[in-house]
């Protein structure tokens, strides 16, 4: 709830509220400009996302991060001297951010993206330090400590991993590039830690490249537990996704979770909600400009590799428009999807995402698309685009086979080149889903008439012995 409120507020409001509160606590230590800059940088780094427990206070830690070895709990990073980082010197703070070193010298688990934060300039580290010391209210919440089983509780083992994989140097601008592109690169490689999700990982779960000089696998896209984190390398022709977007499209997407082609879904939703939607347009344009300098490599790219032209496939459109001789999937599309995504599969710019050329529809792994069909989706409410547009879920309305037929239709219509989807694949996704209520368009008759709903339940449970009326 607190998070939601905070996310709902614009950056300016959030900052004002936080700073005022902090001033009372710290009696005016730390200059206002630096505090505000640090607050902004903490947004860019999305610190709050991991260091806040559900329903807990901001930055007070305690979010449980599941791992195969046990649960890792995020720490309290408020300036409380016992529970938080109030005793950290600026040098100790810098070491934590850049090298994953705790003040006592122990290693942090690389849940903390310190391999990326190693890029941060001294100046930004300073602003973040000032913000966390003077702009955040101390909170004595003592989050649960991480207690992994042996050997994963041996934090010293991380040193070797760090030595192998986390050796980034502080960022240095490249004179060959414009100031804007350098700024974009700094944000992407550093605070944005985009590579954490969008760069494929190696045998030891290390990012295969921590920056573009490290190899063209950097930001080439990755499959994350069945979800596609698409490639972000934006320089290329005839590619889906980011490479097919203009700089403005990328910036719009980061600011609002939506643009002329697409709408955010899955794990990126919270990144936009908590982080990028609060960044300045200049910074977002810089990020976009930088991404547009990274050439797509057909050998390494995932998610943007297909040379699917976004050409209009008039056959699908004509078939849906005539509405006769439809396949099962086509009929299901008309009955469930056409209202918003339309016969041309193009949706509506900035409102309903296009399915023609859609990354979920063209992904090797259909899981994300199946998820979306079953559970629906919701855009974040952002300062620029406050409307939290929702797509209903259809899991309550469609059988596994119907979802499979529909997903197959979407993956093969309008020139899309996704594979077929089996009902078993749908079943698997359905089984894996949480049993909480999602975005359902289920017309709940119980809301208007309890007895009718009871009657439904009763009649449904009666055996169909005979049917004289047929």
């Amino acid at each position, binding site marked *: 709830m607190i998070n939601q409120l905070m996310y*709902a*507020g*614009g950056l300016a*409001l959030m900052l004002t*509220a936080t700073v005022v509160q902090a001033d009372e606590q710290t009696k005016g230590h730390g200059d206002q400009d630096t505090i505000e800059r640090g607050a902004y940088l903490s947004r860019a780094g999305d610190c709050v996302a991991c260091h806040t427990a559900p329903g807990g206070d901001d930055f007070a830690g305690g979010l449980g991060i599941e791992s195969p070895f046990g649960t890792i709990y995020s720490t309290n990073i408020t300036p409380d001297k016992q529970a938080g980082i109030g005793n950290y010197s600026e040098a100790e703070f810098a070491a934590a951010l850049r090298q994953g070193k705790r003040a006592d010298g122990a290693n942090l688990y690389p849940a903390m993206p310190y391999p990326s934060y190693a890029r941060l300039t001294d100046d930004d580290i300073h602003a973040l330090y000032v913000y966390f010391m003077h702009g955040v209210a101390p909170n004595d919440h003592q989050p649960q400590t991480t207690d992994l089983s042996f050997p994963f509780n041996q934090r010293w083992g991380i040193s070797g991993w760090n030595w192998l994989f986390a050796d980034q140097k502080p960022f240095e601008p490249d004179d060959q590039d414009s100031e804007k592109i350098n700024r974009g690169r700094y944000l992407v490689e550093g605070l944005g830690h985009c590579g954490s999700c969008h760069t494929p990982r190696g045998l030891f779960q290390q990012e295969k490249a921590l920056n573009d000089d490290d190899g063209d696998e950097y930001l080439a896209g990755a499959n994350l537990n069945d979800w596609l984190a698409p490639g972000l390398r934006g320089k290329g022709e005839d590619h889906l996704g980011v490479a097919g977007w203009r700089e403005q499209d990328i910036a719009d997407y980061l600011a609002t979770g939506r643009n002329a082609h697409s709408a955010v879904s899955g794990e990126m939703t919270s990144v936009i909600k908590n982080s990028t939607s609060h960044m300045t347009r200049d910074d977002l344009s810089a990020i976009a400009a930088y991404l547009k300098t990274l050439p797509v490599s057909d050998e390494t790219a995932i998610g943007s590799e297909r040379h699917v032209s976004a050409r209009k496939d008039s056959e699908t459109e004509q078939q849906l428009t005539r509405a006769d001789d439809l396949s099962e999937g086509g009929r299901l599309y008309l009955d*469930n999807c*056409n*209202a*918003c995504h*339309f016969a041309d599969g193009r949706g*509506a*710019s*900035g*409102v*309903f995402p296009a399915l023609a050329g859609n990354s979920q529809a063209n992904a090797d792994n259909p899981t994300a698309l199946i998820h979306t069909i079953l559970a*629906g989706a919701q855009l974040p*409410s952002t*300062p*620029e*685009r*406050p*409307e*939290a*547009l*929702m797509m*209903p879920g259809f899991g309550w*309305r469609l059988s596994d086979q119907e979802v499979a037929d529909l997903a197959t239709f979407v993956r093969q219509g309008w020139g899309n080149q996704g594979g077929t989807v089996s009902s078993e694949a749908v079943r698997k996704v359905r089984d894996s889903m949480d049993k909480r209520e999602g*975005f*359902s*368009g*289920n*017309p*709940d*008759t119980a809301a*208007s008439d309890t007895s009718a709903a009871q009657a439904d339940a009763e009649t449904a449970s009666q055996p169909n012995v005979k049917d004289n009326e047929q």
Partner: protein
Amino acid sequence: MSTTRPEVDAVIIGLGWTGSIMGMELTDAGLNVVALERGNERTKEDFLYPKPADELKYGVRLKMMQRPKQSTVTIRRNASETAVPQRHWTTFHPGDGVGGAGSHWTGVLYRATPNELALKSFADRTFEPGFLPEDMTIQDYGVTYEELEPHYDFFEKVAGLSGQAGNIQGETIEGGNPFEGPRQNPFPLSPLPRTLTDTLFTEATKKLGWHPYPYPSANVSGAWTNPYGMQLGPCNFCGFCSNYGCLNYSKASPQTCILDALKQREHFSYRTNCEVTRIVKSDDGETVKGVLYHDGEGQEIFQPAKLVILASFPLSNVRLLLLSQIGQPYDPVANTGVVGRNFSYQITGSIDMYFKRHQFNPFISAGGSGQVIDDFSPDTFDTAKHGFIGGSYIYTTQGPGGAIGAVKVPPGTPSWGSEWKKNASEHYGHHMMLGTTGTNMSYRDVYLDLDPTYTDPHGDPLLRMTYDWKDNDMRMTQFMAERMREIVAELEPDYHTENFKQVGDHFDAAKYQSTHLTGGAIMGTDPSTSVLNRYLQHWDAHNLFVMGASAFPQNMQHNPTGTVAALTYWSAKHIRERYLGNPGPLMSQG
């Protein structure tokens, strides 16, 4: 005993269009604002496909509407009749819940014409003395078209209005409505695509020498991002529009156009299931000090506020003023007082035509889709020659969507049995309607007051409507019937039926007429004949502003929402620019 909450800068009563707009405007001005909504929370989740596509629930059982059990009105045609309650809604459909009528409306978004805002001046200029019936009490709004134009323009951007301008800065544009007031800008979006009924209507009316144009529609024709960053998607003619929430983010409503943006405002909050029962007067007699309401748990709560915005449905506005004893109640016999005065409604009529040769597929339907002529507006022809003041637009719209309400059978068909079935089957899809929506003048003996007998669950009297149809307005609608018959003659249907009111008919509250109820708390420039000054500020309490069509001194032919919204922005502008810095009456009592 009531609980008192901490004081706020402004309390808004009702969270529909006007409450939402005021929420934006007043938080923009830095005020701490709370809105109290009598009905339920209603979010986009309630409108997710396919939930709204439920004709029984929304089209027949009217689940978007206020529950008569909670509050209804009593109706009589004249002072000698005993008023009886609308026990379930037939004659009109007052909205309820967050979004209010703005969630279930049709989406026809018009401006008033310059002359309709100054109808009395127009009449005085146009007609011989003594032409107007003696008991007719029409007045000027006190605000001009030029003053409202920027606010119409802004709201049309908020709503993504789709259509074709007919007059841009004085230049007549082909294909638009040549009789509209000048607009500074074209419509934000192009018109909706044309249905078959649109095309037939357009051809016929052009042949007759008239000027068809597309209905100005707030069911948008394309993707739209409004000035608040809110978004609308293209209308897909789903067939579930008037009486329904939109399942496609296509119909402008507080939900699609304002509320998510408003909810981001730090200084805005709202409470649902909170029914305001009184606006509480201050001891100084010149202001109000807050509102008394019942929350969802049956607690009575006093909410102090520096500014009170009454933003509920017109009938509820008037009732709350009467219950709160703010302003002098209207007495039609003595012809004194103002609250309840100049209540008016809308004069409608229709023709159903049947064409075996056409397949209309009436489920392809959008509320704001249609074609219209304004050739017979109050100021476009010599109405005096025909014995009336006023006018109507004549239109077609494809539909109706739905099934229960969409069975159209030709004249003489039995209402049940095999014959009915056969005709229902054969004629579905072959029906086209013509409609007319017209002015309703205000009259001395048509008014609102508190019912002496019937009460709501809190024991407060219901509002009483004393309303009947008058000869002037019946002559007007009969004139329109004649014009519509000319269209029928052009179109040559296989057969047709008519539904028009005649001179001498009495108001029929058992049939749906319209939800465009206006007046009762009207605006003006003279405190002896209006409740509000021209800024919608109450003459008797300067920190009370009353929004909505209750401010209309008489009803215009065009649908009210555009003018209601424009007046709200107009009022907000004066609150922000003048009132907040120097609270007090914005007009002298004269």
